């Protein structure tokens, strides 16, 4: 393999391998069927409807993934996998090398709230 190929592979590995997102969960109710992409309600806003707590979700982004969009997307992936309609009480805190997000995944009991988050 020539030198420039080694450099290219190294760069590719560096770009791909320098960031990751880990998700954690704590189940609170039986999971539902994965459906829509869960809506996100940051701390301070709460949908005006009845809801069932499905699970607590947490997402931690490292390196190049230590950004709010990556962490929120990690929360949504985890919540969607377990059939949640929304994530409420979402809070994201970022440092220099990692970013932490937390929220409560919920399912609407009656009907979705009249307006989005």
């Amino acid at each position: 393999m020539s030198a420039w190929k080694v450099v290219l592979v190294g760069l590719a590995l560096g770009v791909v391998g320098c960031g990751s997102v880990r998700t954690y969960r704590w189940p609170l109710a039986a999971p539902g069927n994965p459906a829509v992409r869960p809506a996100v309600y940051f701390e301070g806003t709460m949908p005006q409807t009845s809801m069932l707590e499905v699970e607590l979700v947490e997402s931690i982004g490292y390196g190049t993934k230590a950004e709010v969009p990556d962490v929120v997307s990690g929360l949504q992936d985890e919540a969607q996998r377990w059939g949640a309609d929304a994530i409420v009480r979402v809070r994201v805190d970022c440092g220099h090398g990692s970013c932490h997000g937390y929220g409560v995944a919920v399912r609407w009991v009656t009907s979705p709230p009249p307006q989005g988050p």
Partner: protein
Amino acid sequence: MSWLRQTLLSVTAAGAIVSALGCTSVGSSAVRTDGMPTRPQIGAVRLYGITQPGGSRVIGIVEVHAIQEEANIEVLLPTFARRVAELGGTGGVIDNVLTGFEMRTEMRMQSYSYPCGYRHTCWGSRMVPYTYEVRFLTIQGRAIVPDSAPPPVNASPKAAEVPVTPIMPMGQGGGK
């Protein structure tokens, strides 16, 4: 200098083994706030992430924390539930999940080589400052029981019945 390097390596290896085997960053605290003595319960603990369910009352507060790799809910919530159960609670309401970051600096050993003599390489070691970021996670919440659970009683019921007497009798400087 080789004995010094060997000693330092041994100490470092021993420290790494001890930290890998026995030390955890998980800490917790729990306080019963309703005046009842702590009475652990052995049943399951249900957690609530948004609000306290109706028909329940608070019996205490619980806090758990950890840093770095252990600072996640899958490590901390079992400890949270255990502390709720130790207080006698059957449920836990999570009020705050707080994350913080702080920079720490510690001195670390670094080995280096340098040319010495004729075509020889010598090795040395030195302490250098190393700064890194520490992420910590704190979960705070309340321990609850159903309203039907035994109500709190005054921890010292006779305290109110005991007449309050001044340390010094009136007329001798005590009282008004």
